[in-house]
């Protein structure tokens, strides 16, 4: 079905350096219904630390990821109606630069993707960061989600602080991915602060030690002021 390209060793290496890969797979639901071995899943730890069913054929993707991708613009690039189809897309204009009707070789896709990459870099310049850099963000996000799953707000905030330090010289557009990770930790820290604020009404001593540590971790964030105000309140009680 897809293994000649997607499981080709040379193509895997090429794609890691030169493309972003998207799969639009139709009729997976039929495979699941028929209990086709190619629709089998395996259990692994998901991004939030919980157990997730991933597809054996497409590691890292769940059936729901596949169904969701079918509802995006990605599915519109097959204007031929024939399956399979491969489209090389410019991420800035979202235009299809090349389309390959029917089955094709990994070599052909690599040639077309290389041409497309040259065009994109001519128009928008060379990238300021690499995929290896982006993996640092992915890794940090996984650590933050895991820490939240374990209700460890301090660990989550520590991971974000380290990530900020590592990425301080990144261009602004790349920093957006770091902001997104920080937002995950801050949203959780907000909930923790809400709980502590509520607890402070009835049991201020229980909040004192927790809020002191949290204040240090929240320095420089949007929650710093609120945490300090709560600390002052419970220490004054």
């Amino acid at each position, binding site marked *: 079905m897809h*293994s000649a390209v997607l499981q080709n060793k040379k*193509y895997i290496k090429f794609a890691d350096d030169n493309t972003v*890969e*998207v799969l639009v797979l139709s009729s997976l639901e039929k*495979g699941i219904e028929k209990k086709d071995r190619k629709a089998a899943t395996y259990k692994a730890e998901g991004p939030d630390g919980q157990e997730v069913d991933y597809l054996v054929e497409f590691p890292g993707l769940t059936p729901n990821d596949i169904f969701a991708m079918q509802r995006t613009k990605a599915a519109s690039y097959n204007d031929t109606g024939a399956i399979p189809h*491969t489209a090389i*897309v410019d991420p800035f204009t979202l235009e299809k630069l090349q389309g390959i009707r029917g089955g094709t070789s990994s070599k052909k896709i690599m040639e077309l993707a290389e041409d497309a990459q040259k065009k994109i870099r001519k128009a928008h310049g060379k990238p300021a960061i690499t995929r290896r850099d982006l993996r640092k963000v992915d890794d940090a996000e996984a650590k933050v989600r895991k820490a939240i799953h374990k209700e460890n707000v301090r660990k989550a905030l520590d991971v974000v602080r380290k990530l900020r330090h590592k990425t301080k010289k990144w261009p602004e557009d790349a920093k957006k991915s770091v902001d997104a990770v920080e937002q995950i930790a801050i949203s959780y820290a907000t909930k923790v602060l809400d709980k502590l604020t509520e607890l402070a009404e009835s049991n201020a001593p229980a909040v004192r030690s927790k809020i002191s540590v949290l204040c240090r971790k929240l320095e420089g964030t949007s929650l710093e002021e609120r945490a300090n105000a709560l600390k002052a309140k419970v220490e004054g009680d």
Partner: protein
Amino acid sequence: MTSKLTAILAMLSFLTVAAPPVSAQRKPHIKPTVRLAKTWDGAVAEAKMLRVPIVVHLHGFY
């Protein structure tokens, strides 16, 4: 005869209980595969940052 039958049935019931479900017996063999984007928006953002094209593979399961 009856006692032999009872013993065999007892053994079979033990096997039924002791054997884990098929899905738990086999560890799936996961072949190395190209890294696929989980979402379209994520793919677009990543491709912009890396200044690379998006390769969209449109396949049918059957």
